[in-house]
């Protein structure tokens, strides 16, 4: 595995509370990993690095690197370790590449994370990446179904567990992880895509308003 250095730029949603991956970093290396809220703002372009890896929140990588036509090959990729609201981070790393990202940079980033034991899914630089883009409309459907009395929360979760192998169900994890976070994500997706499936639900709005009241 290539040596890597970690540049901590503030609270990281991906590595809250530390992680073996951070402890395995060197003071310098061919790979630079920027973690934390300021990763995109604080990163410094460095063509000598095999790859520069930026932690992303909900934003696109292009916000930090640009995406205007004619840009040369890039050695910068983005990443986000998926977590649902306040739930612990999963083992999934969504690795974000742009159209001008070099193949070697993407491969090095993937190898780094896989070497550290993560599951890596590569995607292009779209808001919502893979998971939020796909799961949020389903969560919204579940919340609407609950409002419309299609089934109780328990039965909805039981049905998708038994019928689809969705081991956690929908409603229970949404409420446990903080439904107001779901509202934030769907609002951002709806702003970009304007599709009804992403429109915040009544239950999401209520949860958000309650969180602001607290």
């Amino acid at each position: 595995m290539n040596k890597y250095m970690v540049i901590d730029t503030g609270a990281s949603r991906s590595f809250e509370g530390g992680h073996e991956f951070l402890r395995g970093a060197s003071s310098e290396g061919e790979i630079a990993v920027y973690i934390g809220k300021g990763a995109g703002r604080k990163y410094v372009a460095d063509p000598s690095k095999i790859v520069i890896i930026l932690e992303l929140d909900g934003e696109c990588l292009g916000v930090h690197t640009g995406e205007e036509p004619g840009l040369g090959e890039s050695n910068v990729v983005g990443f986000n370790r998926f977590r649902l609201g306040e739930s612990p981070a999963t083992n999934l790393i969504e690795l974000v590449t742009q159209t001008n990202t070099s193949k070697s940079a993407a491969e090095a980033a993937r190898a780094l994370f896989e070497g550290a034991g993560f599951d890596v899914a590569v995607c292009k630089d779209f808001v919502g990446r893979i998971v939020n883009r796909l799961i949020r409309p389903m969560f919204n459907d579940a919340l609407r179904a609950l409002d419309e009395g299609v089934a109780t929360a328990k039965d909805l979760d039981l049905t998708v567990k038994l019928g689809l192998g969705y081991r956690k169900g929908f409603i229970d994890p949404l409420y446990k992880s903080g439904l107001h976070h779901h509202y934030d994500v769907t609002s951002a997706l709806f702003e970009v895509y304007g599709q009804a499936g992403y429109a915040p639900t009544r239950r999401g709005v209520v949860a958000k308003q309650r969180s602001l009241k607290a």
Partner: protein
Amino acid sequence: MNYGSSFIIRLTTIRSAPNIDAGECAYETNAGSARLTAHKTQKRAKAEPLFRVVTANMVQLRADENSMTAHGIRTAAVAGAGTMGAGIAITIARGGFKTILYDNAQAALDRAKPLIEAFFSKSVERGKLSRERSAEIIANLSFTSDITRLGNCDFVVEAIFEDIPMKCGLYAQLEKVCPPHTVFASNASTLSITQLAAGCGRPDRFVGMHYCLPAQVMKLIEMSRGIYTSEQTWDIAWQFALATGQHPVETRDTPGFILNYFCVPYHNDVIRIIEAGVAAPADIDRAMKRAFDFAMGPCELLDMIGLDTHLRGTEAFFAITNNPRLAPPPLLRRMVAAGLLGRKTKRGFYEYESAAMFGG
């Protein structure tokens, strides 16, 4: 009841009558054709007694004609030998019933038979079934393209394409050959059970039984009543589901019930982001499995369902709901046109060495 007379019954939503607890419904029937429209309403209590009276009368009217009990089923048939039909036949045969798998296409039967036998061999290999029991089950399982062979069936599960005229055409044939007590169940995944029941000739002896893929592995059955499903029919179907080792869950007769309400638009979303170049199928599957501990990725599941089946389902679903997420994505149409149907053609989002059935 004279199904030939034209009449309208107004019904209102109620939790205690789960077959119609969606909203105010106007149900019109004339010479066997039915139309159902639902409207939101607050007038719940007012119409509740009316519905109960109608239901009770129907049960009374049918009681003399229908002497079968929940324990009286000896022979059951599955009509449709596709991926789902073959899986359902496995569950029924495994439950100890004489089981007939019917399809009007001999080729479908020729394909299903070795897959089912291979499934039971695998079950023996894995120690889930004794060799003797496997032999008994297979001996109780027959295959036919002659619909008159279903003349002694007590229960028929229809598992053909999501196409109302096609399904109703099959029911018309079954109506001619099956005895009056036979219960018809539809594995329809998106279509209205009431609408299908209206075209079957025996709407009181008709239920929705939506199995999940792969049926031989997944225990859930979403069970739905049509407006005219009798309590006796419901009990028979429920007991039958339990007797075959499945886990029935009652759902409303609404488009997609619960599972496809979530799954069909989700799968279209998946196909659209593949088409948009957001990610490759393997990355999407990995992401969804790891993020939520899902047993299967969406592309793996689509390949198992069959892209042609998904296309028919989403077309039917879109026609009912007009929800843009249910409109078939262009990539789906292209893949189906190219014969990339999934496991059944050994190539869909992934390539497969065999079309063997899942599980065992």
